[in-house]
């Protein structure tokens, strides 16, 4: 057993080192364009990890991108209109997004399933309208310029490494959350709410924290997005933002933390690398998405688990797989 494990560990170590080297080399070899794509990938990973927390508890929100927007506007406007230092703006962005999320979910958690999805869709709609039409504050469609320096002189390479550090810290935090008592209570709340409640889990409190933590990270990511781009407009934060997050989660699978990460990285890279080919990009995205949804409803992570289970049993029979309530399956109740 240990003999078999040793080369496997070595292999993982080599792969991890190679991956780290590639990630570090991107801005030096690829220049500003690839650094920009890298930044998008990093921010998207943070978004989907934050989104995953509440979805584990069985509630799917539609307004995750709105917290990203709230962070971007909070940070951008504080820095450009009041001259607050970017570091403080960054923290304020996370705090503001978390605060708004708590104010939203306290009434919204009364509704379940598809109705929660719709109420948060409504919130996204209201905020979209505010960002677009309160143009004296937000610049509306035309947008607003914001402070362009996160650290140092604000070059794309510097931004790249700041945001890389941010995503690594975020992954660490979400990993710790997954292993914590709170993290282990999320899935039971999603799978068997009544059972979780009688075994002493405060369902509402769990959901409020899951939503607020996800929103806070979305807000922080929004702040970095705003200062990296140095410009934000209401066009950046439409409902397609949330749709993409949902797609990454679905492609990756919700149960394992690495699933959504793989989903976000793969789909963002595919979308960016195919951007030049117009209609084919859209068709490819559409076809991949349909195939993934139809062929592996539990996402990449679910597929990996199924394959693993098959090998472990040493038989051709699919090893049960997780019960449907465990994955990305939400009945209409």
């Amino acid at each position, binding site marked *: 057993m240990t003999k078999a494990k040793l080369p496997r560990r070595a292999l993982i170590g080599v792969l991890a080192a190679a991956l780290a080297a590639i990630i570090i080399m991107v801005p030096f070899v690829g220049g500003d364009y690839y650094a920009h794509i890298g930044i998008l990938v990093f921010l998207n990973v943070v978004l989907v990890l934050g989104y995953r927390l509440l979805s584990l508890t069985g509630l799917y929100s539609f307004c995750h991108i709105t917290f990203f927007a709230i962070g971007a506007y909070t940070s951008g406007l504080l820095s450009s209109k009041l001259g607050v230092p970017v570091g403080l703006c960054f923290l304020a962005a996370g705090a503001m997004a978390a605060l708004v999320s708590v104010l939203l979910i306290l009434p919204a958690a009364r*509704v379940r399933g598809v109705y929660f999805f719709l109420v948060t*869709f409504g*919130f996204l709609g209201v905020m979209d309208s505010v960002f677009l039409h309160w143009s004296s504050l937000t610049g509306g469609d035309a947008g607003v310029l914001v402070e362009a320096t996160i650290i140092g002189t604000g070059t794309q390479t510097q931004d790249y490494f700041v945001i890389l550090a941010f995503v690594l810290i975020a992954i660490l935090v979400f990993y710790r959350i997954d292993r914590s008592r709170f993290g282990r209570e999320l899935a039971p709340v999603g799978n068997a709410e009544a059972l979780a409640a009688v075994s002493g889990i405060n369902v509402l409190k769990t959901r409020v924290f899951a939503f607020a933590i996800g929103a806070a990270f979305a807000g922080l990511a929004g702040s970095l997005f705003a200062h990296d781009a140095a410009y934000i407009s209401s066009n950046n934060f439409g409902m397609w933002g949330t749709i993409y997050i949902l797609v990454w989660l*679905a492609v990756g699978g919700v149960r394992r933390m690495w699933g959504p990460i793989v989903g976000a990285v793969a789909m963002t890279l595919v979308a960016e690398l195919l951007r030049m080919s117009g209609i084919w990009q859209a*068709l490819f995205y*559409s076809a991949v998405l*349909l195939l993934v949804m139809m062929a592996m409803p539990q996402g990449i992570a679910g597929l990996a688990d199924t394959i693993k289970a098959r090998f472990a049993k040493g038989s051709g029979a699919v090893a049960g797989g997780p019960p449907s309530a465990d994955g990305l399956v939400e*009945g209409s109740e």
Partner: protein
Amino acid sequence: MAAQVIANSIILGLTLALMAIGLTLIFGTLKIVNFAHGEFYMLGGVLLYYVAESAGLGYWIAAAVSVVAVGMFGWVLEVLVFRRFHGDLISGCIAAIALTIGIQSITWEVWGPRTRGVDSPMSGEHEILGAIFSSERLLIAGVSLVTILALTWFVKYHRLGRAMRAVSQDSEAARVQGIPALKIMALAFAIATGLAALGGALVAPTTFVNPAMGSTPLTFAFIVVIIGGMGSIAGSLIASMVIGLQQNLTALWLGSQWSIGVAFALAIVVLVIRPKGLMGHD
């Protein structure tokens, strides 16, 4: 003034209702939130253009062709794609989103980056009870009203409509009773997509036709369905009128740019007070 506002609200409400009733019918029977519904509306308008203007067959034939063709297309998509996602909220949504991207990009490719108009089958104005109506808006309202009444009758009294209600209440129990639930679901999807195409074909002469024209009606249909309650046709009809009135009043008092934001806010308030909408069920 008041008469004009009320009349405008009713006409707007009736056009919203065509989309919303289809959306709620699909949710009620298939338990799917059809994010692709706006694309069927768009296809209704686009097909109308091709048949009426390019082929020169006139408005009425074109409208009939687009409704039937889109309904059949809906049937095919239900069998090929949506059938796998009955009752599965998130996966069904994402599949619908994938279809939206695909349908829209193919249509852009065929259609080209332009906006076209369709000639209205009628012109002129009428004055009724102190309110002024253009003939084409009266026509839209009339056709919508007749269609909605016919659908209500169908769902309530026709054999297939009753089967549809049975399936939406409990598809397993319906199957046990010998109702071919899967076929009924496909029929519901085809009817709903046909209604969306009718909406697109009716409204096209008053606005414009392009492959993005489905997104605003979809958004309003969602708002209406949230307020009316998912799965309730009567709720959707009432909520359509409420939103029609809200649109006109908001435009009057705050300016039309706020009308969609206020509609969303209204939807949130309704959901928080009545978590299943005005007349929704599970």
